[in-house]
């Protein structure tokens, strides 16, 4: 039996190269591990039936020495990222039987690299939620405490990595959907700079905010996957050539702490205590800690819950039951729309469509949508200014550890507060990473996370700091 627990991408690659085990044996070990845990955790919506066949292909590449670092590496993919010929439901009944007619760019890149796709992971419907409870196919449970949520919306992808059901995974992040579940499950999650990773083939939610990113056990694995999926893509006009970030010099990195933003009502004492302990760890690793001001950051959540639903309401208009997905026939064409959308779209999705339509309506457009866009720029200016003095801005990833299943599902606003620290990076467009930083010890050990943000295109700083924090060796 292969010791899956301690495997990383680099270690696995070396084992495969040396022939300690084959990609097929590795894939079979993962399938076995998933079989043992998935019935409880429900992190996968589907385990692909051709996993072993994919691994055979990888073994062939390895034996012919045409493979690379990712050849034979078993990954899980969030259910809103298209893989040609496979179902992609975005956690919705609307797309329950939708079979993707093309590969997303990230999947194409990973296929070319020889990755083995294990299956598609559970998520909040159309990525709308922070707990995976909004999935039309039932909630995923937190591997650290089965009575609690894994976070969301990429809850299945984070839980799969945490429970050892995948070596790493892909998620998507619109307001924290990679980082918050990574924090709740005790793994690493990266939301890259807006425009760095192509969204071609990602089922859209909030197009000015969405990014695909990796979830993994280590920062090094996160970095390897990020490098594999990034890059300009003609099929996503928002992508930019990733700046070949100037290599870090030996100088000391500075971390800015927006105290006024962090010390608010609603933050759990354990999260705050753990955050301050984490800063001490950075200090002893030679980092300088500085207080900074981000006067408008406190409006991020309000701005996010204006701009995001506005974009949701237009993105969801494509689900008309005519061209793909669910179709329920009525007497007239408009009946088709109403019946299909009634049967296909869950409550949170419909709530956000209505909210978005409201903030975009002619009477309220200036008061809400336009105002939110204006403040979004003020927030951006705050961050741009701060990065003139610091390399990193740190906050807790989420204000609390994982909450109980059902605890917040009756109160959408309370659920939204879980995103208070993660939404600014999406509004501003900067990269942000969540690192496991310890536990809240109670009846169970609940993981906590620290979030680091850096300037546009400076993922390299996040990787360096992340490795220092977690004690990973930096490879030169």
């Amino acid at each position: 039996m292969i010791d899956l627990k301690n495997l990383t991408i680099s270690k696995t690659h070396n084992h495969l190269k040396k022939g300690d085990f084959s990609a097929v044996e590795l894939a079979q070990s993962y399938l076995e591990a998933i079989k043992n845990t998935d019935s409880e955790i429900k992190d996968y919506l589907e385990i692909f039936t051709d996993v072993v066949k994919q691994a055979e292909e990888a073994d062939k590449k390895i034996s012919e020495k045409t493979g690379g670092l990712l050849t034979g590496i078993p990954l899980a993919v969030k259910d809103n990222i298209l893989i040609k010929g496979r179902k992609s439901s975005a956690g919705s009944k609307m797309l329950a039987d939708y079979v993707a007619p093309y590969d997303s760019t990230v999947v194409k890149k990973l296929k070319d690299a020889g990755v083995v796709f294990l299956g598609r992971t559970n998520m909040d419907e159309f990525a709308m939620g922070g707990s995976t409870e909004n999935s039309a196919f039932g909630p995923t449970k937190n591997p650290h405490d089965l009575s609690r949520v894994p976070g969301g919306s990429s809850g299945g992808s984070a839980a799969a990595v945490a429970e050892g059901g995948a070596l790493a995974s892909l998620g998507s992040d619109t307001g924290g959907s990679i980082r918050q579940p990574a924090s709740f499950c005790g793994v690493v999650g990266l939301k890259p700079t807006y425009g760095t990773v192509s969204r071609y083939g990602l089922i859209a939610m909030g197009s000015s905010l969405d990014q695909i990113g990796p979830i993994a056990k280590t920062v090094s694995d996160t970095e390897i996957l990020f490098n594999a999926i990034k890059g300009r893509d003609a099929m996503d006009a928002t992508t930019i050539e990733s700046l070949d970030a100037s290599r870090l010099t030996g100088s000391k990195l500075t971390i800015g702490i927006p105290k006024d933003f962090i010390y608010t009502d609603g933050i759990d004492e354990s999260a705050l205590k753990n955050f301050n302990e984490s800063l001490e760890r950075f200090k002893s690793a030679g980092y300088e800690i500085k207080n900074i001001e981000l006067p408008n950051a406190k409006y991020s959540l309000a701005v996010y819950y204006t701009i995001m639903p506005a974009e949701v309401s237009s993105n969801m208009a494509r689900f008309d039951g005519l061209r793909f997905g669910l179709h329920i026939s009525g007497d007239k064409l408009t009946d088709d729309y109403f019946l299909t959308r009634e049967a296909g779209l869950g409550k949170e999705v419909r709530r956000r469509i209505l909210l978005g339509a409201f903030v975009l309506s002619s009477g309220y457009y200036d008061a809400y949508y336009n105002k939110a866009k204006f403040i979004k720029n003020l927030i951006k200016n705050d961050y741009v200014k701060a990065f003139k003095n610091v390399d990193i801005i740190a906050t807790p990833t989420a204000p609390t550890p994982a909450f109980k299943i059902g605890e917040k599902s009756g109160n959408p606003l309370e659920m939204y507060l879980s995103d208070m620290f993660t939404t600014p990076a999406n509004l501003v467009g900067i990269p942000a990473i969540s690192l496991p930083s310890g536990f809240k010890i109670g009846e169970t050990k609940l993981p906590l996370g620290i979030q680091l943000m850096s300037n546009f295109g400076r993922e390299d700083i996040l990787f360096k700091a992340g490795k220092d924090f977690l004690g990973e060796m930096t490879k030169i």
Partner: protein
Amino acid sequence: MIELKNIEKLAELSRIRVSDEEKEVFLKDIGSILGFVDQIKDVAGKADMTMTQSENGLKNIFREDAHPHISGQFTEDLLGCVPEKENGYVKVKKIL
């Protein structure tokens, strides 16, 4: 503040059917979300698109109007997703 008739109108426009019971729930939920969002009204200033765009350094990007794919290359795959079709067309009900 948002009222029941707004919810009904928005639902109609969004092609979403909501039951009477659900209308009340949505009114309460959306009302409380807007109550939270209302703090943005405290911020002085108004959106001036020209200013913000130049400040942002954002620009529109268009795909090059060239190199079309071979006609029909994706037709079969895309039609494969269509719930009702006829002779290579998406079939919809009469509009008028």
